């Protein structure tokens, strides 16, 4: 594997170094590299220097392997077990350890405040880093899942901006859905 260095320039003109193999975790960067348009430094006008190191940290960990998160989602390597004729139990164990380690790493990696979550989400979207986008949107989804509207507004500082008339209408709608849903 090549260890060519790539330089990324943040929106606020700070330059960061990343291995080419790590940079390939991003589809956008991969296309730039493969397209041969690499001219020293890649400018990233949508990613600030606050968030770029965090993005690089993710790319380094995943080193161009976009499938790692998918493997976790599919329950580790078990799915492939039957397909492989020379299935190796030791290899399976090693893979399980690797997946567990990655899950732990992701847990620690994702420990940050909400503003970072949005910046990271937008950066992952812009740079097409699927695994990172999955992780960040899942965190946001987990703050909505099973919560009441008031709890969700509180979680995300959403201001209910309906006029009094609309608000009444929304309450009616809410009640109507609630009747059907039999909420607690």
């Amino acid at each position, binding site marked *: 594997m090549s260890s060519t260095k790539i330089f990324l320039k943040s929106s606020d003109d700070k330059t960061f170094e990343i291995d080419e193999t790590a940079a390939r975790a991003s589809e956008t960067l991969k296309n730039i590299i493969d397209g041969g348009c690499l001219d020293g430094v890649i400018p990233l006008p949508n990613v600030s220097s606050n968030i770029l190191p965090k993005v690089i940290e993710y790319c380094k960990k995943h080193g161009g392997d976009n499938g790692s998160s998918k493997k976790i989602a599919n329950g580790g390597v078990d799915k492939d077990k039957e397909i492989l004729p020379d299935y190796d139990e030791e290899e399976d164990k090693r893979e399980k350890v690797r997946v567990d380690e990655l899950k732990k790493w992701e847990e620690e990696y994702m420990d940050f405040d909400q503003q970072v979550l949005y910046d990271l989400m937008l950066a992952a*979207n812009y740079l097409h880093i699927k695994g990172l986008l999955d992780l960040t949107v899942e965190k946001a989804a987990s703050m*909505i899942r099973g919560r009441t509207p008031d709890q969700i507004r509180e979680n995300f500082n959403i201001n209910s*901006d*309906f006029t009094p008339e609309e608000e009444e209408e929304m309450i009616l709608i809410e009640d109507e859905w609630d009747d059907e849903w039999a909420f607690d």
Partner: protein
Amino acid sequence: MKRGRIRKVDRISDLPLNIMEHILTRLLIRDAVRTSVLSKKWKYKWVSLPELVFDYSLQDALQNGHDKIVKFVDRLLLLHRGLICQFELSDLSSPSLSDIHHWISLEVMAMACSASSETTLFYNFI
């Protein structure tokens, strides 16, 4: 409703559509639909979700069974806008064939307004 409270920045409401879609598709359908009451910006965020999955969790929520599920799906399809790539019904207590035909006709009407026709129907009830 809590208008007097000092609020921090709300950034989630202004996320790009594709990110919002990623978030909402990770929720159960009833949680996704409920976001419409959060604020004006959220009122129609769920209506263009391309994947509609009605699974066992809906049956748990709609405790009175059949009629409510049918009513829920009806109502949701009427409000839905845009392409539906996946329409999945699983483990629900026996919607009748006429219900399904009705839903498909709603679907077809919706699809007539869109260029593509990638609707997939999964019937998974016994």
